[in-house]
């Protein structure tokens, strides 16, 4: 043991003397490997986390909120018809200087036009890739084109007015890449490098990625928002228990996605702190509303009433959440979660309601997701609890689970049997993003796993998409939530709380409601 300590001390000394270590490095234990470094190509949170470290868009979400604020664009105007967005760009923004690229000019309109045009055209420079998030947010249906007015002004034109457009532009897929860098790569026949070695305008400059091991960034000294105080390393570990052990051993300073069962012990640890924030999400049990007897709203309401949601929040979410009354989390504008009639746990009444509806010997298959998500940390446990709850009202439930890819696919079809545990984390902080992909009529057989198409509800969503006045939109979404509550296409379970465990040395970390991880405001005491 003494030998080991001596060796360790010697090696530490050697590193300091060799100057090989960074002055102040924050190590973030992340949950997976980034798929690539081009902000346009991917949409998994793990990949977007590294994108937001080095890139920025025209606008961004104010950290910790869903509010859109200026970033590379200092200000903007929207035409009265809602079809033209004019962005005035920030002057003096430097592109990052790296081992592989030295910029000769500042950020300007050419970069913006290039970054949008490549996604509008839709062809990428790599095989088997697509501008995934751009497509999935239906941008091709909304964006008509972009043009440069002068070096610091661009004009984005839309095909139809789109209320969530600004929020969409604050998402990572709309981040701006350097035209000078891509031109240089294209001329050298090395375009693929854009996905390996990023150059952005963001707070951190990319240094190196060792596949499946770590990603290194250093503070960008030229960052227009002020250089970060730390260098940043993403240390990748898929296993939540092993990540926690790394945090306990001091090998990392911040960890992603703790398992809910560990949160209590983290809070009690004198060296650690766990900051928490209400997540922008909901977890639910999705009935197939096109199948008998679940097409009967009374049956759905009876089942909803039979689920002991408070017990579930205690056992499945380890208390890190609140019962959901609306699909829209209470922190989102237009949400009436707090004022909607709460769901009451009442097995006796539920049983009577089923009898009244003429339903006897009901059996139901409960689909339990095989993966943990912030909105549903342990679906198997949740399914077992529902099974016990349903047994109390004479409903026989079976729990069914398959691997994630199969689950995603086989839970979609309209003729799917049983009820599915699933949920949603918001992309852009807009209510439309919660309703249209999950409960819109067009999403039946797809993301609408309740297979629920209510004409009145759908009409409200469509109407709200077309107007930009937030107050008027909020009214429409309030009406939509009332319909949703009456119809109960899903049994809403919880809006979960997001927990970020970190060393007490870490200060300034702010939780992002969209579930991404930002480090530009973070500092670490030695």
């Amino acid at each position: 043991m003494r030998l080991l300590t001596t060796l360790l001390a010697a090696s530490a000394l050697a590193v300091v003397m060799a100057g090989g270590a960074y002055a102040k490095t924050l190590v973030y234990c992340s949950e997976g490997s980034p798929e690539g470094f081009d902000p346009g190509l991917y949409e998994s949170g793990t990949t977007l986390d590294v994108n937001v470290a080095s890139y920025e868009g025209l606008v961004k979400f104010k950290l910790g909120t869903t509010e859109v604020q200026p970033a590379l664009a200092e200000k903007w105007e929207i035409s009265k018809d809602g079809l033209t967005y004019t962005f005035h760009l920030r002057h003096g923004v430097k592109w990052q200087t790296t081992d592989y690229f030295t910029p000769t000019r500042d950020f300007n309109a050419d970069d913006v036009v290039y970054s949008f045009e490549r996604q509008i055209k839709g062809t990428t420079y790599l095989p088997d890739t697509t501008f995934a998030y751009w497509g999935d947010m239906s941008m091709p249906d909304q964006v008509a084109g972009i043009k440069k007015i002068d070096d610091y002004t661009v004009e984005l034109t839309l095909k139809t007015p789109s209320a969530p457009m600004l929020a969409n532009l604050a998402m990572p897929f709309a981040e701006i890449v350097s035209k000078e860098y891509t031109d240089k790569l294209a001329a050298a026949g090395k375009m693929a490098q854009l996905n390996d070695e990023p150059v952005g305008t963001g707070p951190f400059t990319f240094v190196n990625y060792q596949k499946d091991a770590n990603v290194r960034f250093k503070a960008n000294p030229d960052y227009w928002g002020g250089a970060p105080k730390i260098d940043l390393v993403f240390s990748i570990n898929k296993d939540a228990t092993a990540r926690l052990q790394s945090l306990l051993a001091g090998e990392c300073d911040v960890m992603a996605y703790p398992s809910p069962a560990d949160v209590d012990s983290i809070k009690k640890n004198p060296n650690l702190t766990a900051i928490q924030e209400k997540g922008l999400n909901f977890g639910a049990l999705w009935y197939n509303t096109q199948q008998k007897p679940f097409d009967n709203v009374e049956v759905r309401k009876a089942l909803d009433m039979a689920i002991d949601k408070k017990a579930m929040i205690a056992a499945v979410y380890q208390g890190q959440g609140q019962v959901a009354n609306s699909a829209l989390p209470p922190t989102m504008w237009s949400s009436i979660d707090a004022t909607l009639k709460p769901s009451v746990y009442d097995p006796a009444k539920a049983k009577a309601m089923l009898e009244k509806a003429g339903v006897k010997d009901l059996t139901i298959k409960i689909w339990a997701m095989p993966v943990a998500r912030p909105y549903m940390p342990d679906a198997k446990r949740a399914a077992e609890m529902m099974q016990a709850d349903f047994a109390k009202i004479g409903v026989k439930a079976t729990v069914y689970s398959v691997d994630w890819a199969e689950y995603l696919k086989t839970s979609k079809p309209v003729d799917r049997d049983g009820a599915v545990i699933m949920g949603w984390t918001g992309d852009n902080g807009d209510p439309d993003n919660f309703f249209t992909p999950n409960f819109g009529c067009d999403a039946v057989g797809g993301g609408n796993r309740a297979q629920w198409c209510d004409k009145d509800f759908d009409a409200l969503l469509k109407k709200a998409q077309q107007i930009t006045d937030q107050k008027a939109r909020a009214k429409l979404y309030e009406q939509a939530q009332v319909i949703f509550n009456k119809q109960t296409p899903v049994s809403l379970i919880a809006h979960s709380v997001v927990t970020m465990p970190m060393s007490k040395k870490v200060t300034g970390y702010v939780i992002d409601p969209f579930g991404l991880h930002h480090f530009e405001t973070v500092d670490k005491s030695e």
Partner: protein
Amino acid sequence: MLKYILNRLLLVIPTFIGISILSFSFIRLLPGDPVDVLAGERSMSAARRLELLHVFGLDQPIWKQYLDYLWRALHGDLGTSLTTAHSITGEFLTLFPATVELSICATIFATIIGVFFGILAATHRGGWLDQLTMGTALVGYSMPIFWWGLLLIILFAAGLHWVPVSGRINLDFYFKPVTGFMLIDSVLSGQKGAFVSAVQHLILPTIVLGTIPLAVIARQTRSAMLEVLGEDYVRTARSKGLSNFRVTGIHAFRNALIPVVTTIGLQVGTLLAGAILTETIFSWPGIGKWMIDAIGHRDYTVVQGGLLLIAVIVMSVNLLVDVLYALINPRIRTR
């Protein structure tokens, strides 16, 4: 000898084709495709789904996809990953050294300790030492790797701070990989302390990955030794008055080695299977973790290409073991 090797080589061809079919169809038989995983909870229109299937080349007839894959594989091109868009051979070569390094260390660990305890048990047959060694071996063999790994981490890394929790080297050390073998690269980097750090990071994963092979080798060594110790020539050696060490250590052990070498060779498959879990727990950037991620993402090209490469390597190792076996025991090649 040459004929023997040629015969063994010829057998490789049908095996290769069989594996190419298996690896191609296995992942496609699982419901859910890369587009489903990409969409996640999200809704996707039929048109968008078709567009993405086209991007991934999955709108082609299945037989055409297979023939394309086989044709390109025969030309050494395994295509690109559907997730990262990188060349599969490139990714494999980046990650494979990490798995090899870990597997070699685990094999050395398992062989030295396993053979030692095997001999110890055989020479103390029926005694408490035999019972204890074989009992422990049985426990080792039945050890769930995930549980065992986490237990060691909690005890020795997070608890006692004797060894690091995960990774291949302390993050304070930073150098570009040259060979991909951290033990070698850390020396080449010239940074003092790097090698020590690399060794420390290897300790727990080596023990975890080596545990099952260790148990198997110990049991195999014991039974091989017992068989040989009962042979006439051992009795003759003893009656000649040779020392106990010469009889067991040289005469008996050399002959007991053959089945033990085979066992070690056969452990390559076990090691690769164990690597999947060990690499996940210890965040070891090797091919085990790579394959598991690829299956989860339904990254068809990585799964089929990766499996093919692994199979070719396992086949080569087995071939090598067969040849080695023939070298050690002339009776085999003349049979």
